[in-house]
Each structure stands twice: as C-alpha cells, then as structure tokens.
C-alpha cells in the first residue's frame, strides 16, 4: 500500500482526498479540468427522492475567511441521478460516495436502497445536517435518538457502508456520534456547515434569500478540528474530516485530529485544481515532517491512539 493510501469501509482510496458533497456536483464540471481518477474518492451532491429546486437566489454570501450557502439541496432527484449522473461516473475507478437527504425516514431509505444497488457506488453519506431546508435533515442531526433511528433504518436497506454526516450546530456532537455508531453507522463525516447570516447594509436585509445559510471555508477549520478530535476519541468508526481544508497542512492537521480521510469543499471554488494539487504536495510535506505513512498519523493528537 502506498504511503498516502487509506482504507475506510467501502472506500479503498489511493489518497485521502475527496471533494466534499455539494461542492463538486456530480463530477462533470471538474472532470473537464482534470482526471477524476487522481482523487481518493468522489463525494457527490445530496440526492433526494424527488427533484428539488432548492432555495431562491441569492444563495451564497461571502464572509471573512469563508462563505455562506443556502442552496437548499437542489438536485435532479433519484431517478435522474440513477439514469444520468452515476452512469457518467462509471468510467472512473475512483470510489463514489453518494450524499443522500430527505424529509422523512422513508425518503432516506428509498434513496439509500436504490443508490446503494448501483455498481459504482461505494458508500452512502447520510446528510442529517443540511441547515438550509427545514426538512433537510437538520432535525435528524440535532437529536441523538432521531439520528440513531434514521441510521438504523438506512442500514437495513443499504448494500454499501453508511457514513453519517454530522451537524456542528449542536451542544454535544460526541453524544450524537456515539448514538449513530451504536445504530450501526460504518463511519462519520464531519463537519457540515455552521449556521450563519450576513446582512446587506444597504437594504438592512439578509443577503441570502433564505436569510440564514451554512458557513464553510477556512473560518470553520478550528471548530471542525475540535469536533473531530473529541469524537474520534469516543468512537471506533472512521471519520471523513472536512471544514476549511485549503492547504496540504490542513489535511495533516485533520488526520492528526482523528480523521482517516478528508473532504475539500469551498476551496474548490477558489482553486478548481485544489484537490489534485494538494494530493501532489502531500508526500513532500510528509517528508519534511518525517511522516512515513499517512495512516500512522490518524489521531496522533490523542497520544494513545495509533502511534
């Protein structure tokens, strides 16, 4: 196994970097810019049973060191994804993670069941943390027992490993992480965006049509690191870490905090080549820091782990 390869349930990754859900659509746009096989995995946009039109525009607003988005889970719906988006990805031999969302447990189950049957889908990411639609999962994400129940149900129908994407907008993320682990989650993705708002001084009104949105980007990195660190010490399932990864050092920081792989979101908007660029820089930086194998640094910040 190469120095930068990592293995997670369902995901045999040649490197630890995947684009984050919602920041990479279904791969076609960035696929024009570089070979998607260079990625460790690909995580696609949230899929719901029916087509979703999302929120009115403006849907993004800039913030210091970050951005707010309130896309509202716009997606073409399960059928279209099955017929058009996933087949397009078949030409790549990079593992595919499909982010799924819904209004109610049954929705998640339906999408999970159908999506997980697709031959090139390697894992499902349960989005229980979208802050931008009332029924978009955030309620699943802020209550441990609801989150656990959903996980359990989805596990009964999914043919591939299930990662649960946690919301940072909670008092005790460890509690929720433990609950979904017990409910059978194969891994965790964290973190989704922090709820935020920006106001346009000229109008006095929020910039986003949806008023609030999800904060992503460099600004949230220390919150992500803290949550991953805390959770990784209390659960045994692997974590896909995300939230403000821009530089190669960030990848290492997330892994030392306890992530087994990472996802890059907002940074793609700054530099569309950021994923392959960071992957290319990884080994040199490991050499500088005297890191032999990437897998050996996972959770290093918690002394006892994996050393």
């Amino acid at each position, binding site marked *: 196994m190469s120095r930068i390869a990592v293995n997670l349930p369902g995901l045999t990754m040649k490197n630890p970097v995947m684009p984050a859900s*919602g920041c990479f659509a279904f791969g076609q*746009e960035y696929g024009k810019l570089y070979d998607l096989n260079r990625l460790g995995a690909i995580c696609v946009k949230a899929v719901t049973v029916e087509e979703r*039109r999302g929120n009115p525009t403006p849907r993004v607003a*800039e913030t*210091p060191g970050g951005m707010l988005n309130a896309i509202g889970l716009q997606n*073409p719906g399960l059928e279209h994804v099955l017929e058009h988006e996933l087949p397009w990805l078949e030409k790549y031999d990079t593992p595919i993670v499909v982010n799924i969302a819904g209004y109610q447990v049954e929705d998640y189950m339906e999408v999970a069941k159908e999506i997980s049957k697709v031959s090139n889908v390697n894992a499902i990411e349960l989005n229980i943390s979208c802050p931008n639609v009332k029924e978009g999962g955030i309620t699943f994400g802020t209550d441990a027992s609801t989150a656990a129940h959903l996980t359990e149900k989805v596990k009964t129908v999914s043919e591939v490993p299930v990662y649960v994407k946690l919301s940072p907008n909670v008092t005790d993320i460890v509690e929720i992480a433990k609950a979904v682990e017990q409910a059978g989650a194969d891994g965790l993705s964290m973190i989704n965006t922090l709820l935020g708002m920006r106001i346009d001084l000229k109008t006095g009104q929020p910039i986003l049509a949806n008023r609030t949105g999800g904060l992503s980007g460099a600004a949230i990195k220390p919150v992500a690191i803290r949550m991953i660190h805390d959770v990784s010490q209390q659960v045994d399932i692997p974590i896909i870490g995300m939230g403000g990864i821009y530089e190669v050092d960030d990848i290492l920081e997330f892994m030392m905090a306890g992530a087994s792989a990472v996802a890059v979101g907002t940074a793609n908007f700054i530099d569309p080549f950021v994923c392959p660029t960071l992957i290319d820089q990884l080994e040199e930086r490991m050499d500088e820091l005297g890191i032999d194998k990437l897998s050996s640094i996972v959770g290093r910040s918690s002394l006892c782990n994996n050393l």
Partner: protein
Amino acid sequence: MKMENMTITAQTEVAPKIYRIVLNGPLARELRDPGQFVNIRVGTGIDPTLRRPISICDVDLENEELTMIYRQEGKGTKLLSEKLVGDEINILGPLGQGFPVEVAKKNSTCVLIGGGVGIPPLYYLAKKLVATGANVITILGFRTEKDIFLEEEFNELGQVIVTTEDGSKGMKGYVTDALKSLTSYDVYYTCGPKPMLRAVEITAQSPGYISLEERMGCGVGACLACVCDLTKPNEETGKGYAKICSDGPVFLAGEVIL
C-alpha cells in the same frame, strides 16, 4: 477554460469608480464568444474567499490581452482597483456561454442595450457583429453624464444613443425610452441590472439575448449557487433551471424567468 496568472498591463479609472483593466497571458486566446466572463481571484489568502466574476469587454487575440471594465463596488473590486501594472492576478476563464454572433445576418440590424457595468461585454460583441457585416445600434444607459464610458469606442462601430436618468447628457430617461424610438431591428442583445432587463424584454420588438448576473460560488457549474428558472424545462436534460455561470450568463429572451 483555464486558470492562469495574468499580468496587468493597464489599469485606469475611466469614470468615477469605473476601472478599465487589461490583462496579458495565453488564457486570452481561449475566448470563444463575446459575453463570456472571467472569475478573478482578487486576493491571495483566505480573504476574500470568493472569486469575482467580471465580463470580458474586449480581447486582443494576437497580443493575448483581455480588457475588462468594472465598477469598484465592495471589498473585492476595491482590492482589484488597487493592483498595479505589472502585478500578476489569478484568472479563471473564459467562463460561460456568451452572445451568439452567428444569429446576426449580414446587413441585419442589431440593437445592443447596456446599462452601467452591463455595457462592457457588449463592446466585443459589437466588434464581432460589425465584422460579420451587421449594422449595430447601441443604446447606453447611465445615471448621469459623468458616469459615461465606452461611448466613443461604440461610436466607431455604429450609431450610439446615450440615455441618462437625469438628462445631463443624451436622451433623458431609460434605455427603454430609446429602444421605443427604434422602429425596425432584427435582434437585440442586452446586459444590465435585472429591472432594466425586464423592461427591455417587454419593450423589444424582436428576438433577443439577455445576459444575467447572480452571486456565484464556483463559477463553473458545480455548486448551484447561481441558478435561475427556465420558462419551460430543458428538453434534453429535463431540468427546470439553468446555471447562470455555465448555461449562461447569456440566455435567449423568454428562455428564463427574470
């Protein structure tokens, strides 16, 4: 589409808070259509986070130069305006689908209607149209006389009607007042603030093309920040919306809901 550090070869304030910037680099050769835009990284660190979309106003393919005209609006365009000749700046582009030039037949009459910083992309369009042998009439809307830019340049390409809201120069009123005065034309192309686009769409007597703006995340079609609704679903994809950054910014009038 490319990402490239281009070199600033000129930067001047052509009207209050309106800047003309010229960038040099091979990326310029990638331009396909007038109306395409670039996404500019105005800083180097984490702030500002997002790139700034600015339309391409003119191109010099031989010398690999792109010209843009932008208003110093907020933080990002302020940073841009502070850059100096010789500085490098990271450009992603050209992006989007521009104005179709081929729809204008030889000797046909094209009306170009621009408001404020919606005017710049019409300039390269006008040049291309003139090159195909079409007649170009340009209506340029400004708030007041001192805001006027590009008038002379358009003058060399055909008839120009300037409107100002306060009547300090040209026709007093809006671009649509000028448009009403025109009797026959074959196609129109417009870019400007949304209320203007709506008014133009209602007023115009011919088919036309409309260039839209929206706050953007990625600029390449991946984040769904910049969608607008289609009047009827796309036949091919079945989708009821379009992405301004990659399906647009130019749409056939009537194709999208303004």
